[in-house]
């Protein structure tokens, strides 16, 4: 561990969310402002304290239908503030609040807000199903050039071969992995803002339709409308803040070929990022009280469980089987808000980060994990990856 790490100079001061649902009758711009204002208020700050703005992804690009971040300048205009640092991230996100943390740590801003807004639930309704890349990207280029002409039009097709390979190498079964969505659904029942809250059984999981094998319907996160904002503040402003949490360590490493089809070892994902994170702290996996691990698909949470060392390589199936270890009173409560699988696809670790902060503050309501003082967060895991450990102040 180096003597000085940038994340020591910052705290997460606020998290805020708009109304979240399958379809919410507010524009992306409205949802964004709802979340940004809520996060600033949550931090104990006022709009005029904010001098850094960032969003993921940036550029106003419609990567997929329903990406609704809008335009960073319109948000600044709506807030009528002065900014000393701005960023729209498309690539290199790691955990999206990593760049704002670096900006604050280096004095480019004092209080930076980053947001992520989705209207993917509404986009899915308009499309008559989950939107696909082909819907607004008729020309296959870049990393998608090898996939889209095949009809592999959704991220599920790109991630599914990882799951196939993982299950082949380690003998993990769908019956075992079912316990991730099933347990998270039970958590969502205690989260009034989750999209799906009715109980889900392993039997229902096994009988659900296949989307792209071995990934079935309940392995896919649920397209939603909603926005999440996170405020990162300089550590010397802690006396001004309502309930900040520390960033004990964060990292984002890509050590294999950065491509969905070229990633060399599809049975092992996220390991370099997790190792780099642990190298920046004296904390160990045994110290973690709650885990908010990216779950765009079930297999992505599996990657982080193993990469972070909560269980051994290939052991996630037996670790989650029965659901006990990952339940609210288990040894590692997982995605306590329901995750993206039941809470809604808020994307890029934003929902996970908001929940980690709430758990560390003791503000997670009926789903609160008693005594949660250390939270792990993972984002994506494949050819983009970010991980962090947050601790209560």
């Amino acid at each position, binding site marked *: 561990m180096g003597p000085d790490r940038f994340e020591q100079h910052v705290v997460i001061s606020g998290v805020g969310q708009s109304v979240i649902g399958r379809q919410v009758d507010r524009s992306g711009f409205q949802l964004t402002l709802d979340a940004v204002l809520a996060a600033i208020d949550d931090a104990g700050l006022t709009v005029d304290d904010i001098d850094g703005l960032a969003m993921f992804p940036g550029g106003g690009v419609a990567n997929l239908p329903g990406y609704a971040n809008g335009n960073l300048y319109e948000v600044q205009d709506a807030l009528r503030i002065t900014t000393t640092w701005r960023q729209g991230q498309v690539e290199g996100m790691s955990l999206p609040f990593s760049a704002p943390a670096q900006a604050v740590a280096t004095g480019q801003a004092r209080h930076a807000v980053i947001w992520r807004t989705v209207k993917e639930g509404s986009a899915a309704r308009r499309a008559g*199903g*989950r939107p*696909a890349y*082909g*819907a607004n990207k008729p020309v296959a280029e870049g990393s998608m050039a*090898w*996939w889209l*002409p*095949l*009809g*592999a*039009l*959704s991220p*599920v*097709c790109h991630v*599914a*071969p*990882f799951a*196939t*390979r993982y299950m*082949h190498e380690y003998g993990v079964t769908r019956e075992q992995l079912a316990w991730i969505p099933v347990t998270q659904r039970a958590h969502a029942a205690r989260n009034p803002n989750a999209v799906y809250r009715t109980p889900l059984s392993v039997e229902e999981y096994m009988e659900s*339709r*296949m*989307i*792209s*094998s*071995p*990934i079935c319907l309940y392995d896919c996160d649920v397209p939603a409308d909603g926005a999440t904002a996170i405020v990162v503040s300089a550590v010397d402003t802690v006396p001004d803040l309502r309930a900040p949490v520390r960033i004990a360590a964060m990292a984002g490493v890509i050590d294999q070929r950065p491509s969905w*089809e*070229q990633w060399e070892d*599809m049975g092992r994902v996220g390991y370099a990022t997790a190792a780099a994170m642990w190298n920046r702290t004296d904390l160990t996996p045994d110290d973690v009280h709650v885990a908010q691990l990216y779950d765009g698909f079930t297999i992505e949470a599996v990657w982080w469980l193993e990469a972070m060392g909560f269980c051994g390589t290939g052991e996630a199936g037996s670790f989650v089987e029965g659901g006990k270890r990952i339940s609210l009173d288990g040894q590692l409560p997982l995605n306590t808000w329901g995750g993206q699988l039941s809470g809604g696809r808020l994307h890029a670790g934003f929902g996970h980060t908001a929940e980690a902060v709430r758990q560390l503050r003791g503000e997670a309501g009926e789903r609160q994990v008693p005594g949660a003082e250390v939270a792990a967060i993972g984002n994506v895991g494949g050819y983009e990856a970010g991980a962090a450990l947050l601790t209560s102040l």
Partner: protein
Amino acid sequence: MSPVEITSRGRIYSYTVNYQRWLPELDVPFAIVLVEFPDYPGVRVVGRLRGCPPEDIAIDDEVEVGFEPGPGGYAIPSFVAVADAR
């Protein structure tokens, strides 16, 4: 750096069978395979697989290189299952 022509058989590293009709004209189900070539380490090509029912695909199966008509008049990478490989 220059292209290399590969005509030898490949081996399935992983695969998926897609069942979701992402666009109205998309015929489903179809199999997508990630193929490696033992004589060319570091090369992995993704393509569709034909010549066997999707439920019969297995990791390490051998496949022949092929192409099939794709969108816009282009040929897209495709593979053909080798019947006697198992």
